[in-house]
């Protein structure tokens, strides 16, 4: 009987070792496919993939969940821009004072308007308002960039804000 016991234990162990990696691999493959196919439907695949994969919550998220992650990425990009704007305002570049102040109001609108609207729309189930909010955020970033007539100190941040927002809007379109 001990022979049988050892055999069954060994047998069970063998099955577990061969199938468990497949199960784990199976789940990751499923999630990867969703992230990839969703990102292929956006205007910027790389920005999309980088943004989503950087957040562990993206594995196992549905399309709505991926969109909500992108909204969080929008927040971080908006904060990056606002921080740099405040820094530049403190360092007192007078020729860009008006433009910086104008940009501050646009990024403020993104942070207190567009992003909360998008987050709530996705969470509560009326995604078109998330698409509107993301599209507007992309526009606000463009308007800020235009304030400087080619000599913008915020180009990197504005581009990041714009690209991430445009990707978010594209992902939300899948939910409509």
């Amino acid at each position: 009987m001990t022979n049988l016991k050892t055999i069954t234990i060994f047998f069970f162990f063998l099955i577990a070792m061969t199938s468990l990696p497949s199960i784990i691999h199976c789940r990751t493959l499923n999630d990867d496919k969703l992230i990839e196919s969703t990102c292929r439907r956006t205007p910027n695949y790389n920005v999309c993939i980088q943004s989503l994969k950087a957040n562990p919550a993206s594995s196992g998220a549905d399309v709505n969940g991926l969109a909500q992650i992108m909204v969080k990425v929008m927040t971080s990009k908006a904060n990056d821009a606002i921080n740099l704007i405040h820094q530049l305002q403190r360092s007192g570049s007078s020729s860009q004072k008006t433009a910086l102040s104008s940009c501050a109001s646009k990024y403020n609108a993104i942070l207190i308007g567009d992003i909360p609207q998008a987050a709530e729309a996705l969470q509560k189930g009326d995604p078109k308002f998330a698409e509107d909010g993301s599209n507007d955020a992309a526009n606000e970033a463009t308007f800020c960039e235009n304030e400087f007539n080619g000599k913008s100190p915020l180009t990197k941040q504005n581009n990041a804000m714009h690209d991430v927002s445009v990707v978010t809007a594209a992902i939300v379109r899948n939910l409509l």
Partner: protein
Amino acid sequence: MGSSTTSNESNDIPCSYIPVPDSPDAAGAAVEPRRQVKGLFVIFCGMLVLISLVAFNGYYRASNNGHEQASLAAALTKIIVEESGSETVPASSRWQQAASRGVSAGVSEKTNRLFSSSNSNGEMYPWNNSMLSWQRTAFHFQPEKNWMNDPNGPLYYKGWYHFFYQYNPNGAIWGDIVWGHAISRDLIHWQHLPLAMVADQWYDKNGVWTGSATILPNGEIIMLYTGSTNESVQVQNLAYPADPSDPLLIDWVKYPSNPVLFPPPGIGATDFRDPTTAWLTSQGKWRITIGSKLNKTGIALVYDTVDFKTYEKIEGLLHAVPKTGMWECVDFFPVSKEVKNGLDTSINGAGVKHVMKVSLDDDRHDYYAIGTYDEKNVKFIADDVKNDVGIGLRYDYGVFYASKTFFDDSKARRVLWGWIGESDAEYADVAKGWASLQGIPRTVALDTKTGSNLLQWPVAEVESLRLRSDEFKDLKAKPGSVVPIDVGTATQLDIVAEFEIEKEELEKVTSESNVDKYNCESSGGAAQRGALGPFGLLVLADDGLSEYTPVYFYVVKGSDGNLKTSFCSDQSRSSVANDVVKKTFGSFVPVLEGEKFSVRILVDHSIVESFAQGGRTTVTSRVYPTRAIYGAARLFLFNNATDVSITASLKVWQMNSAFIRPYNPDQSN
């Protein structure tokens, strides 16, 4: 239409089938006594069951719930939304910098010389408080501040018109939605009341969303509305006035056993909203319809009820149209073929056509179709299937969404409300502290002359706002001319105008081979000259014509001598600011034999509502000038056609404010 089998592609990975390795001991086990072989076999099967359970669990969690399966399927088979012309185009193309138009060729010589300071090369125009506060309207419904969207449950009761609306009490963005409330004696002079319903139940915790009122024959009011539950499931709820003897209907009670409807099997938890006004069936039951979608097919579900508390889902669908996406704010009502009056929602029979209307989530436009209601088979059949609901006519070719009608039995008319959103940037809404308007309520009726479209017209009560008027008869405008219309300030106007093309000149114009070629939305607006157009009026213009909004006709002469007319509103020069929508909106408008080209335009600060040929085609637009404001706003007649002169006659009224304000019981009405 996508096939859901493609979603299984991702599941057909080797891992979903667990490979069972050959047991190295299988041969040895065969030599064992029979009882031990049997025991080993049982244990082996048990292991397999265990393993497959673990594997299945892993797979199941990866693919989430059935709803997500459906949207994954939709996502895998979906095609990306087309470019230009769609409001949902990615930001960069939607907000194309208005390329320096420089001189709008031919608008007028006067314009050419004066228009030198072009601010349209990417430089941002600074908004100031004066410009922003000018944008608030004088006689359109809007709350004192914050965000508004869909009209809800409009009704007439005990001498008062009631208007409810989606409202955010906390900011100028969509969110925290509750029901605002206002009353009026005449659909024009509104008084704000306290919020009618707030998100105080688990079943509307995440949103007290859109709904409709049904008034029973005994005068009882039933309100059905969508709640987004604390888990964001869309359900339908019943509410009614707390005190029916209160004509102001201030307090509302939610039915204690809400929700009365949950999403049915096969319908997504977030694809089930906006119940309609109910109508009586020939069996004496009440019937409602609720919009939804199956993959990308927009559908209308049907429910019957006797008490509005329990419902019977009717098999099948009232209507469905592929590729239209989610149907929001469905509306379904009869129109008379014989009389101009509106009809009670329950009327059916000979002499009646039915109208089905939907708001498309996909493109934020309201579409309708005229057809027949087959009550026996619970079906709506459009008269013209090529122009079915969602793919044919729109109520309005500009900014106009989530619209809803109600039957006003005090005046035997059907009245249409529509939500007019902003066309500016969010930071301006935040700065000014509000967003959105309602259109002026319109009567809706069948156009008995064409039989194939509705007529919409501002309710007659708006004329009570008319102050002094200026009349202009037979003004002549040669090709490429602009004629000032002296009415003093031009920010609050009611304009009625008629145009005629010089007959002899018209006859000399060469015909076009493709009479359908002109499209307002893809055209160059009023600057694109043709033989027979554009001609019309420039509203919210400044003296130097650096800002103006053309509302115009563009006519094309076909090979048989017939004319095809488009009616458009062009926002591309409406403001020197670059952060506002600058599209041109519009569509074809039927102009019948012997008719002049006629238009009515309501100008009210940042909203322009235009009605062509008695309301056959309408365009609402939002405009945000920076110079053509306050005392600097002007009105012009223009003719940018190349081959014909036009003769215009118009009457222009200054419009009073409607003094929309909070309700004060001490003040007289």
